[in-house]
Structures are given as C-alpha cells and as structure tokens.
C-alpha cells in the first residue's frame, strides 16, 4: 500500500453504545483507495453497526467516521447526499424496490441524480445488467427473481452511478456454493474493472480469503486482527484461528449472555409469581 495516499474511508477512535451496551469499542480503521477490505466476525460482533457507521446511517457515540475526508456525523444533509452519490451499497437481501421492474430499479439513481436522456439510461441499464450477467431480465419484477439474482440486480443498482466505494453486506449469505463463487468473482471483477474500493462484511471464510486484499476481524466490538489474507491465515491469535477454521471449541464462547446463569435463574419476579 502506498504510504502517501490518503485513506478514502476512515474510522478514527470510533465507539458506539446503545444504552449501556458497548457495541463498538475504540475502532481505528483506514481504507485505502482501490483495495478490497473484508470485515469479518461472528454474529453480534458489531459488523453491521460498523458498516452502518461507515455509510453515515448511524452516528458514532465517540470518534469520527470520515468518507472522502468528510466527517459524516458533522456533515449537512446536502454534504451527506453528495457523499452518498459517490458510494454504492449491496444490501443483504438486495433491497430491490418491489414495486418496480429490474430496469426501473437500476435506472432510479440515474433518473434522480443525473440529467441523462431516457435512451441513454436504457443503454446504461443494459450495460449494468450485462456486468452482473443478467441482461434481458430488465422487465421482470423482483418477486420473479431468485435470491441470488436479486443480489446481482442489487449490485447492478449499486454501481449505477459508478461509485468510488462499494459496500457489500453479507454478499454470499444464503447462496449456494456456485452462486457464491460467481458473486466473489463479481466482486473481484468490479474492483479490477472499475477500480472501486470495496468493503465487504461477511462471515463466509472461503469467500473472504478469495476476495480480500486485507482482512479485519472484529470480536466483541474490538478489532483483534488486521492484515493481508496470508497474515490472517497464519495468525497466532486463538480467536482468529477458531473463527477461520470454524471450530466449536475455543476462546469464542457459544453463549453470549452477559449475566451469571445461576443468578439469572434465581433472581426474577418472585413477588409477582403468585399474582
């Protein structure tokens, strides 16, 4: 990584609390232009919260989230919107607009944010669909597509405005192995062809190692590992080992409860038990 380059996206000392629960604890992470960063961790480790703070959907309790040098929490609506036009996001379910055809879904950002002619938009839609291998599906409704196809249309929509950063929220969750491989290849192709910076949140290890330039692992809201795939693969950290090898036994417990079991069973509404 070139040291002179400014990070395109940066989390600086970010923490997030919901009430008393600390979800993210002092997270520092810088993403360089053009790289593919995979954020991994088991469910409930704060991956989604991190993603939502990165895109300015959630405000950090402490610290700063900056994209293109703009502090997202301090930005005005207009500034935030101009940032939003420069990144795309693929949601877990695809998040297609169910009342619109595939073509209208992809055309929507172009119609709203550019003054392109309708004919040009139609051609652009075809190009975006060709990119994800779904050309001539323009006139179908989202309900007529399979889960994997919805994600690919979602991806085509995410790249509609030629974003500089692409976020992927669990791009391979719920896909069969072949669809997973195809999706991974898409992620790689897009970052190579379009030169976009990619941030992928996933717990699918096979796919993570396939696409990542760098990997970050979160555990209980803390960053416990950050580095290129080889470094992660050879990590000595037992928690990282357990996660990438998918072992049931290890330092990461199955139980996520925060209170003592015996205490929890014995406490409680004894008084109202009679009522």
């Amino acid at each position: 990584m070139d040291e002179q380059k400014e990070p395109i996206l940066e989390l600086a000392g970010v923490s997030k609390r919901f009430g008393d629960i600390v979800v993210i604890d002092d997270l520092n992470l810088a993403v360089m232009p053009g790289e593919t960063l995979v954020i991994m961790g088991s469910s409930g480790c704060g991956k989604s919260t991190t993603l939502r703070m990165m895109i300015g959907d959630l405000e950090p309790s402490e610290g700063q989230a900056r994209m293109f040098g703009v502090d997202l929490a301090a930005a005005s609506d207009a500034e935030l919107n101009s940032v939003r036009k420069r990144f795309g996001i693929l949601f877990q379910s695809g998040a297609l607009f169910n009342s619109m055809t595939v073509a209208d879904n992809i055309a929507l950002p172009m119609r709203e944010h550019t003054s392109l002619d309708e004919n040009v938009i139609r051609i652009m839609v075809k190009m975006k669909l060709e990119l994800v291998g779904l050309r001539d599906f323009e006139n179908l409704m989202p309900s007529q597509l399979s889960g994997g196809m919805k994600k690919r249309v979602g991806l085509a929509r995410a790249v509609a405005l030629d974003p500089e950063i692409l976020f992927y929220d669990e791009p391979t969750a719920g896909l069969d192995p072949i669809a997973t491989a195809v999706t991974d290849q898409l992620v790689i192709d897009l970052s190579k062809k379009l030169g976009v910076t990619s941030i992928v949140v996933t717990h699918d290890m096979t796919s993570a190692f396939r696409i990542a330039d760098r990997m970050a692992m979160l555990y209980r809201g803390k960053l416990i590992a950050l580095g290129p795939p080889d470094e992660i693969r050879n990590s000595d950290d037992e928690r990282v080992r357990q996660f990438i090898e998918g072992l049931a036994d290890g330092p990461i417990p199955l139980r996520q409860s925060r209170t003592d079991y015996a205490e929890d069973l014995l406490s409680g509404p004894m008084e109202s038990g009679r009522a």
Partner: protein
Amino acid sequence: MSPRVREHIEKTGGAVNDTISYAGGLGYLGYDSIRWTLRGLVGRPKLSGESLATQMVRVGVKAVPIIALVHLFIGMILPLEMAPILKQYGMESSIAIVQVKAVFPQLAPIFSAIVLAGFAGAAIAAELGTMVVSEEIAALKTMALDPVRYLVVPRVLACVVMLVCLTIVADLSAWLGGLFVYGSILGNSSMEYYQQSVTALLPRDVISGLIKALVFAVLVGLIACHEGLKVSGGAEGVGRATTRSVVLAIVAIIASNMVLTVVFYYVYQWLDRI
C-alpha cells in the same frame, strides 16, 4: 411511596411522554413534507407528477364506488329517522334542510375520511412498513433519495386531492339518497326536497366540509406514513402498524372535526356580525 402507586405514576407519565413524542414525530413529518412540497413546486427537485398520479389512482379512484355507496345509504336513512318526529310538528318539509346541514359540513367529510383511512391509510402503512423491513427505505437513503420527498409527499398529496374530490362525490350521493327516500318511501314531492335544500345550503356549508376533508386527508396520510416508516420487528410489526394507522387516523379525524367545528362556529358568528 408504595411501589404500586409509583408504578401507576410511572405508567401515566410514560403514556403522556409517548403521546407527546408521537405528536412531535408526526409534526416533524408534516413539516418535512411541507418543506419538500414547496421545494417541489419551485422545481428543486421537481415534484414527480407521475408518482403523484399513480398514488391518486391508488388512493382515490378505486374508492369512488365505495364512497358513493356508503353515502347513498347514509343519505337514505337520515330522512327515515327524521320523518316521524318532524311530522308531529308539521315540519316534514324541513327534512331537506336538516339533511344538507348534516351531510355537507359533517357527515360527508367524516365518513369519506374514515373510508379513506381504512382503504388507503392501511395500504400505505403496510406498503411503507414492508419497505422498511426489506431494507428498501435504507437503500433509498443511501441513494441520496429522501424517503419523505420520494414516498411521503406524493402519498399525502394524493390523499388531499382525492379526499376533497371524494367528499364532493359523497355530498352528492347522500343528497341523492335523501331525495330518493323523500320522494318514494315518504311519499312527498321531490321538487320540494330540491327547492328546500337549494335554499338552505349555504356556500359555507360546502366550503367548511371541503376544508375539513383537506385537514382529515393530511392527518390520514401523515399518520399512515409515520406508522409505516417507524415499523420494526418484521411482518408482525407491519400488521401492528396497519391496525394502529387506521385506529389513530379515525381518532384524529373525530377529534380534529370537533376542533374545526368549534372554530367554524366562531368564524361564522364573526362573519355574520360584519
């Protein structure tokens, strides 16, 4: 303080707090909608005529037969209830007067709004709620499209335009229902009904009814959108939002009607004095 008393106080306080914050949320949504509407009218960004038309068809056009039918029946029952008592005083010919005074400023806008709440309000809440659950709203935001501008404004505006039109349909249907019963079942002269109602009906009766329709439509639309957009908790949450939007809309319609009627009462007094 005993824990039980304390619990009641806390519950009451919580309910008051919830109500105020709900009204605040609704008010903010209203403010935001007005802001986007005004910006839409000057064309930055332009109000989409196409989506407004789609919503108007969805909200209003399909409700026309139901509204007409409901008000035809309301118009038919009123003279039947009035006839026996008015006959005793030899005032059967005044039925038309009571009819228009009840229908135009009160019954037509109220019942039309209630039908709209059940017909369109529930559908809007369910639609927006489903969009929240399937991350569509989040997707809109990340595309730099404001859900209020893109979804709420066309829906609320469609409610306003259509409810005002539907109220006119309702006015006419109820009047015709009365005409029919007066002329047939009660065996009086239809011409008399027509003449009596034309003399009794003042412009203010019609106008106040339409102003009420406008206010009710804003309430129905805003409540439905508000309920839809704050859905959480999957399909069950959508169901809850749908029910709540209808119940709250009906309460809001009746309550605001009371306030508006009082206001109009004083306005008329003032108008009559000058």
